[in-house]
């Protein structure tokens, strides 16, 4: 546990000694604000909720989370520090979990900095803050799922651009499988059972509940198992390219 914290601390510090963290935070907050107030018609909706805010998260994260995750392993492989890290007395899974947690904490910080949204909506009306809390939890888990996928693609290559693109593609699939225009298209020729099965793999389907304030154990299990599976796959990939 201590080793995991030591590595995570180093990773987190790494974000803030480079411009990456600040650029990310500013862009994230700008995009979140723009989509909520302009594209999401926050004011015109006439309701005291953050639906306009959370609805955009799967799309904002689609680009920004892989940008955070792409360096996690690709950078270690490119610079050769992976050799240093993995010859320290630490198990590979501990290093994987530590690096993931550090980046997830960073994303949590970015999310926490959107608190003016809560303040605004509370000043303007009387929203159900329980729904908002559930929305934040869902958004955090969604970011974690994308991030774990980025970890996996990052371990596959020493090229960060390749890692980024692969990650966006996989996350896009996770997103589109439950996106209404896509499911409608599928429904034209596929059986409803198949459409539901495909949609069940989508982060959108499982994020919906949280946005409505419902914390369903199945949705929790979905996000946690995506994270678990992607991190496990990361371990397989890392062991794989050392085994030769």
């Amino acid at each position, binding site marked *: 546990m201590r080793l995991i914290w030591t590595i995570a601390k180093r990773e987190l510090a790494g974000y803030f000694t480079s411009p990456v963290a600040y650029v990310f935070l500013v862009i994230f907050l700008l995009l979140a604000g723009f989509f909520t107030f302009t594209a999401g018609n926050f004011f015109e909706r006439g309701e005291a909720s953050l639906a306009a805010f959370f609805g955009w998260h799967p799309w904002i994260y689609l680009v920004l989370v892989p940008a955070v995750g792409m360096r996690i392993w690709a950078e270690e492989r490119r610079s050769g520090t992976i050799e*240093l890290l993995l010859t320290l007395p630490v198990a590979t899974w501990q290093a994987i979990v530590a690096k993931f947690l550090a980046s997830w904490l960073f994303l949590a910080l970015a999310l926490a900095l959107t608190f003016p949204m809560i303040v605004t909506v509370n000043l303007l009306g009387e929203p159900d803050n329980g729904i908002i809390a559930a929305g934040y939890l869902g958004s955090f888990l969604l970011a974690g799922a994308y991030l774990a996928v980025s970890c996996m693609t990052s371990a596959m290559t020493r090229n960060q651009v390749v890692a980024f693109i692969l990650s966006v593609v996989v996350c896009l699939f996770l997103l589109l499988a439950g996106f209404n225009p896509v499911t409608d298209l599928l429904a034209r020729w596929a059986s409803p059972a198949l459409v539901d099965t495909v949609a069940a793999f989508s982060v959108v389907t499982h994020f919906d509940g949280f946005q409505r304030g419902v914390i369903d154990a199945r949705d929790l299990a979905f996000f946690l198992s995506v994270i678990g599976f992607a991190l496990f796959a990361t371990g397989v990939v890392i062991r794989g390219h050392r085994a030769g």
Partner: protein
Amino acid sequence: MIRIENLVKTFGAKRAVDGISFEVARGEVLGFLGPNGAGKSTTMRMITGFMPPSAGRVTIGGHDVVESPLEAKRLIGYLPENAASYPDMTVQGFLNFTAEMRGLRGSRKKQAVARVVDLCFLGSVLRQSIDTLSKGYKHRTCLAQALIHDPEVLIMDEPTDGLDPNQKHEVRNLIREIGRTKAIIFSTHILEEVDAACTRAIIIDRGRIVASGTPDELGRPLEDVFRRVTLPDTAKAA
């Protein structure tokens, strides 16, 4: 301390390391020689537990590197090829990090860092970030990292690569000094280092040991011996 039995590593059809066996006892400094691509780095990566061997066994102080990796890794200090280190960290931050990873906390951590800073002459650059350092300092920072827990076994991949003559001299002296009480393996293709720092040397070529012994046993001049037992790059391609 270090025991290597029939170590093999294959990458696809290529046998990078092809049945290497040797032992290094406490108080020995083993020079690991060979042309580029002979399998030196691959062997060292297997000894340090970074790569699992395709066949064969490595034990460090009685701990099998594959079966009980953490126990084995605790005994090893490792200087990887090109002295990789995190460029965004300061020297101090980096050494604190590796000390903590080695389980050193509080005053023991402070002492350990102070000791290696002294040993590797890093006092003047402690607060600089590693990417602003010259190659010599970068190298010594990574060496300091390898020494931080006062390891019983020290594995160094080209520890003098890219250093100026003064720095080379210092590193060699350091190796000889530390080697009195530890088991050390270092790779190099600078033959004079064998005389300067080693108690024993092994020459490998295309994954196999082609000569081994004390510098005196190998014969002199060492360069002729080396050229006789290894093939040049051009011959390998044929």
